[in-house]
C-alpha cells in the first residue's frame, strides 16, 4: 500500500493563540484506507482537517512547521482550489457549506463541478446520481435554505462527494443527523471507501470507529498520543486518559476482566464480544 497523505513533524499555532493547536504530528494515511481521528474537544481534530485540505496555511493565519503532502502535492505550495481536485472536506456546520448562490439543491450540488469546468450534460448526470444516493430527489428543486438541518447535511455531503475526490475528509459531518440518518450517511461513506476513496473521518461514535476504521489516531492537546488499528487503540484503557471513550464492547470486556473472568483479549466490536460472552456463560 502507498501513502496518499504524509504528515511530517507538522505543528501549527493560530495567530494570537497562547499555545499550539497541533504539535509535531507525523503520520501517514494509506491510499484507500479508512482513517479515523478521535480526541476530546479542543484536541486539534478540526485544525488537522483544515490543514489536510490546505485551509492551513492558506486561509488561517498562524505559525506552522513541518509539512503535509497530499497525493504528492506539498499543501503549503498548492492552492486550495487546486487541492480540491484531490481532497474534499465536509464541515461540522452544513449551513456554512452552502454556496448561498444556488436557487435549488441541484445547483448547489453542481456548484463545485461548475468551478472545475465540468460540461453541463455530465453535471446533470452526476447531480441525478448523487441526489439518488443521498435521497435528495424529492427536494432537488427546492431552495437549500428551505431544508431541514439533516437535509442540508446531506446536500453538504453530496456537494463534496460529487466532485469525486481521491480523499474525503469528514469533520463530524453527521452531527446534525438523527442516529438513523447518521448511519445512512455512514453506509454511503463506507461504500465510497470500498470503491477505493480514502476516508479521513473525525467521529465520536467509538463503536462505529471500531467497526469501520483501518487506523485510528488519538489526539490530545494537539499531540499524537496513539495510532494503530482500532483493536490496538480502542482496547487500551490508557486511551481514556486522553478524553476518549472506549467502545461499550471494550468496556464490557474490561469490566469482565476486572471481575476476574478469564478474558484474554479485549474486544472492540459486537461479534467477538458476543462470542466471548457466550463462551464465558457456557
Amino acid at each position, binding site marked *: 500500500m502507498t501513502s496518499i497523505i504524509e504528515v511530517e513533524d507538522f505543528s501549527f499555532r493560530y495567530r494570537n493563540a497562547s499555545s499550539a493547536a497541533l504539535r509535531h504530528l507525523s503520520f501517514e494515511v494509506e491510499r484507500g484506507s479508512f482513517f479515523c481521528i478521535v480526541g476530546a474537544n479542543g484536541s486539534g481534530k478540526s485544525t488537522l482537517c*483544515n490543514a489536510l*485540505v*490546505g*485551509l492551513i496555511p*492558506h*486561509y488561517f493565519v498562524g505559525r506552522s512547521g513541518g509539512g503535509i503532502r497530499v497525493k504528492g502535492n506539498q499543501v503549503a505550495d498548492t*492552492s*486550495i*482550489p*487546486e*487541492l*480540491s*481536485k484531490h481532497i*474534499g*472536506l465536509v*464541515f461540522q*456546520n452544513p*449551513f*456554512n*457549506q*452552502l*454556496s*448561498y*448562490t*444556488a*436557487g435549488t439543491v*441541484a*445547483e448547489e450540488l*453542481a*456548484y*463545485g*463541478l*461548475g*468551478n*472545475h*469546468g*465540468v*460540461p*453541463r450534460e455530465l*453535471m*446533470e448526470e452526476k*447531480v441525478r446520481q448523487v441526489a439518488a444516493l443521498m435521497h435528495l430527489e424529492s427536494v432537488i428543486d427546492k*431552495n437549500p*435554505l*428551505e431544508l431541514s438541518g439533516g437535509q442540508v447535511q446531506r446536500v453538504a455531503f453530496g*456537494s*463534496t462527494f460529487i*466532485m469525486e475526490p481521491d480523499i474525503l475528509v469528514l469533520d463530524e459531518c453527521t452531527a446534525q443527523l438523527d442516529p438513523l440518518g447518521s448511519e445512512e450517511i455512514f453506509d454511503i461513506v463506507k461504500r465510497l471507501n470500498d470503491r477505493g476513496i480514502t476516508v479521513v473521518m473525525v467521529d465520536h461514535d467509538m463503536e462505529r470507529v471500531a467497526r469501520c476504521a483501518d487506523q485510528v489516531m488519538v489526539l490530545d492537546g494537539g499531540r499524537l498520543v496513539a495510532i494503530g488499528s482500532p483493536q490496538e487503540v480502542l482496547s487500551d484503557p490508557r486511551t481514556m486518559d486522553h478524553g476518549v471513550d472506549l467502545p461499550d464492547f471494550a468496556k464490557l470486556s474490561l469490566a469482565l476482566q476486572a471481575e476476574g473472568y478469564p478474558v484474554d483479549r479485549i474486544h472492540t466490536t459486537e461479534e467477538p464480544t458476543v462470542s466471548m460472552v457466550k463462551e464465558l456463560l457456557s
Partner: protein
Amino acid sequence: MAKLCVADGSGNFLDRMNPLVKILGIFSFGLGALIWPDFSLGLVLLLVLFLLAAVAGILPSFSKLILGFGLPVSIMLLFIQGCYSPKNRVIIASWGFLHLGLEGTLYAAKIVSTLLVFLGAFYIVNKTTYTGRLVAALSGIGLPAKIGYLVLASLNVVPQMEHRIKVIRQAQSARGLETGGGLISRIKAYLPLLGPVVLSSLTDSQERGMTLETRGFGIKGVRQSSYVKVDWRKSDQLACWLLLVFFLLVLLASILSRTGIYPFTYDWGGGR
C-alpha cells in the same frame, strides 16, 4: 421564508427570455426615454411596461411600486421644478405666492417618466429573471467568476439574513426575551438581535469563504461551467434586434427634433 428566486425560465415569454436581452431592454427603454426631448416617449414606455408586467403576472406589485414611488416623487419634483425652476418663463397656474411654470413642469415630467421607466424595467427584469440564469448568461460572455459570485451573493443576502434573524429570534424568545407586543417592545426586542446577527454573519462568511475554495472556487486556468441552462433562441435574437433598432430610431428622431430639422415631439410652448 423568502425565496431566493422567482422565475426558473419555464413560465411566460419574459421568464424564458435570455437575461442579456432583458438587460438590453432596460437600457434601450431607459436611455430612449432619457434622450427623447420630452416626457411623451417615457409615458408610452411606461404603458408598455404596465402591459409587460400584466403578461408577467406581476401587475399588482408593479403598480404598487410605480404609484408608491412615482406619485411622491412626481409631486415633489413638480413642486420644486414647477415652482422654483429658474427656466420658468410661462406661468400655467398661480396660487397666491406660488407660480407653476411650464418649463419646470415639463422638465419634472421628463425626469419622473425617465426614472420610472428605468425603475419599472429593472423591476420587471428582476422579478422575471432567476439570478442564477442572469449570472450564467453574464459568465457566458466573459464575466469573471468572482464578480458573478459577488452579484449572486449580494442578491441572496436578504433571505439569508431573514433566515438568521428567525433562528436567533427563536433562540432568544426560547430563553424568555419578549419579542411581540407593541411597537416599542418590538423595537426593544430587535435591538439585542443586531449584535448576534452581524457577528455571526461575519464568522459565517469566513467559513463560507473556506468552503467555496474547497469546492474549487477561484481555480486558475479553468473556464467555469454552469448547471443553469441559458439558451439563446431565435426570439431572443429578434428581441435584441428590435430593441437596438428601437433605440437607434429614438436616437435619430431625438437628434432631428432637437436640431429642429424635423420636430417629432409636440410643441408644448415655452422654452426648453
